[in-house]
């Protein structure tokens, strides 16, 4: 994996929103990369900046009030931030596509699935309508929708939640993207359906050899499908490493706090250890480390110094002062 050139590199990304009440630093210095064919998880709670990071990659930040104030997003070596709106439109849906959380609001209710899928295919590929329709049916079949040639004529409301999410995935796959961004794709679904959809993601990835960025708040989903994980807190990365390493030797107090907060299904019930306090207001972040007010291991220096992301072990990055002395300084 080491020598593989990354498919996507996000460097020092800052996406801020300029509102009446001040600047909201939704994403404030995020670095990560995605290798071809891998699944990268981005975890965090509401307001941690995980969705805004995804929207920034796709150039979907509503502006005003939002603006990417700094950073680079290199996709196949080219900076997406330097592309024109027209060029981005070519990339979006073809090279990089997205699956949203809520399949009901992300499908157009007044058009049949066929019409919406054909539109996507025709927008990006030089094919006839007939070919586009065949492609749509083939895709629905691929994602496991029974009787696709009939179902393609249905409207979104005629599908169940799980089926709608399958339709969304089929649409996202329409042009064989090399990167699929899935923003909480299973959050709105029941667990048995979630299991089906996660299975589908794994199968599609294998068959189509694409990279996936899986945005979620559920560490269980991360453990199931992701190769590497970026944990975000208040717009900044907290920890970035392999999934196994994160669960075995997670280092950042926030990561550990999250894991202790989740009830586990095991014979002996332990009391949950929650993280105290509330996430900070992104428009008014505390000085120093933004996790400091909730951190168990807070030191005096945490209140004044904002730590940087350090590689404390091979491929294990942590942004915490506790680990700064044992570091080998790495510029990231």
């Amino acid at each position: 994996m080491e020598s593989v050139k990354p498919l996507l590199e996000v460097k020092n990304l800052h996406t801020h929103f300029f509102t009446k009440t001040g600047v909201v630093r939704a994403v404030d210095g995020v670095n990560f990369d995605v290798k071809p064919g891998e699944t990268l998880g981005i975890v965090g709670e509401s307001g941690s900046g995980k969705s805004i990071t995804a929207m920034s990659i796709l150039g979907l930040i509503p502006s005003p009030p939002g603006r990417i104030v700094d950073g680079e997003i290199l996709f196949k070596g080219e900076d997406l931030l330097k592309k024109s709106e027209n060029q981005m439109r070519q990339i979006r849906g073809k090279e990089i596509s997205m699956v949203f959380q809520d399949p009901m609001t992300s499908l157009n209710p007044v058009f049949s699935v066929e019409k919406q899928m054909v539109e996507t295919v025709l927008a990006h590929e030089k094919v006839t309508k007939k070919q586009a329709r065949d492609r749509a049916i083939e895709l629905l079949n691929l994602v496991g929708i029974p009787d696709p040639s009939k179902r393609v004529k249905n409207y979104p409301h005629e599908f169940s939640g799980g089926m709608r999410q399958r339709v969304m995935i089929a649409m996202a796959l329409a042009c064989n993207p090399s990167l699929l961004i899935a923003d909480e794709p299973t959050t709105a679904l029941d667990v048995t359906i979630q299991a089906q959809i996660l299975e589908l993601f794994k199968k599609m990835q294998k068959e189509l050899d694409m990279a996936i960025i899986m945005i979620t708040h559920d560490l269980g989903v991360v453990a199931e499908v992701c190769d590497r994980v970026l944990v975000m807190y208040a717009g900044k990365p907290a920890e970035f490493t392999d999934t196994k390493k994160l669960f075995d030797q997670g280092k950042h107090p926030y990561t550990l706090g999250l894991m202790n907060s989740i009830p586990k299904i095991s014979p002996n019930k332990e009391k949950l250890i929650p993280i105290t306090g509330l996430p900070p207001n992104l428009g008014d972040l505390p000085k120093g480390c933004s996790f400091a007010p909730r951190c168990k291991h807070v030191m005096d220096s945490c209140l004044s110094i904002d730590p940087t992301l350090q590689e404390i072990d091979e491929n294990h990055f942590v942004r915490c002062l506790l680990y700064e002395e044992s570091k080998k300084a790495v510029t990231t």
Partner: protein
Amino acid sequence: MSALLELKNIKKHFPLKSEKLFTKEKPLLKAVDGISLSVRSGETLGLVGESGCGKSTAGRMALKLLEPTEGEIWFKGENITNYRGEQLRKLRREMQIIFQDPYASLNPRKTIEQTLAEPLKIFGMPKGQVTQRIDYLLDVVGLSSYHKQRYPHEFSGGQRQRIGIARALALEPELVICDEPVSALDVSIQAQVINLMEELQAEFNLTYIFIAHDLSVVHHISDRVAVMYLGKIVELGDAGEVYSNPKHPYTQALLSAVPETNPHREKERIILKGDLPSPANPPAGCKFHTRCPFAEDICRVQEPELKLVSTGGQMAACHFAKEVVTEGNFT
């Protein structure tokens, strides 16, 4: 332990719009289709199932927020099924509910003080004591008395849920129905609220019916668990027993579908085919047969009864779960 609340074969059928013209017959959506449960004083009974399985409807019937179509509800040894008006109002003091959405369940135009004072005033608490009681309630749920002049929008989701809990506890109820109380909250906040609920239960000797779709949360908080599927209870028993040794294929599938937070453990997963059938048109026989990996002919025609499947009192409604015959009734 005595039963605080008993549901006896309760059903709730909602009439749907008729598809045919000129007919009085309306198709029915059978949200809850005959469940019997007894809730023991001081315990937490978890009610799990996927969306549309009738778990919330069952909870609301227990509180008499919905009238059951059929069946009886007993509370502290009294049949409350036909309680109306004043009788019902008095009863409500003893049973309360915490709702899922902390954004929608608090009146946005009332301060926290007004919200919390309302039930106290209705039940005739002298004015002098009201303020004191509110301060106490806020303290109990981990908020401060200076919060009471604020409006709901000034609070975060977790804090609002705490207010919802304070409101439910205002009248010192015995039974609290918790309808997905933590599913709208972030993980770190969720743990805070779960711990709070556990502490309050111990302090005030509360009985909870905990309705949720998150299986690990239910396992954590419940003493006993009832698993529902399409308006029926398919499995019921001690939480530890049901989770470690599920007897019904649906419970097995449900538990295997929970994402494992340990990346080293490869879990054998039962992936169910298809979706939940519509409760407006449920399958004949065992309602789970359309998705069940073990379904046989008998499942398509005959509906299984809930029967005792372990000496510990675990019950399951499946033709192929082995029945255990013992003395006594565990429902």
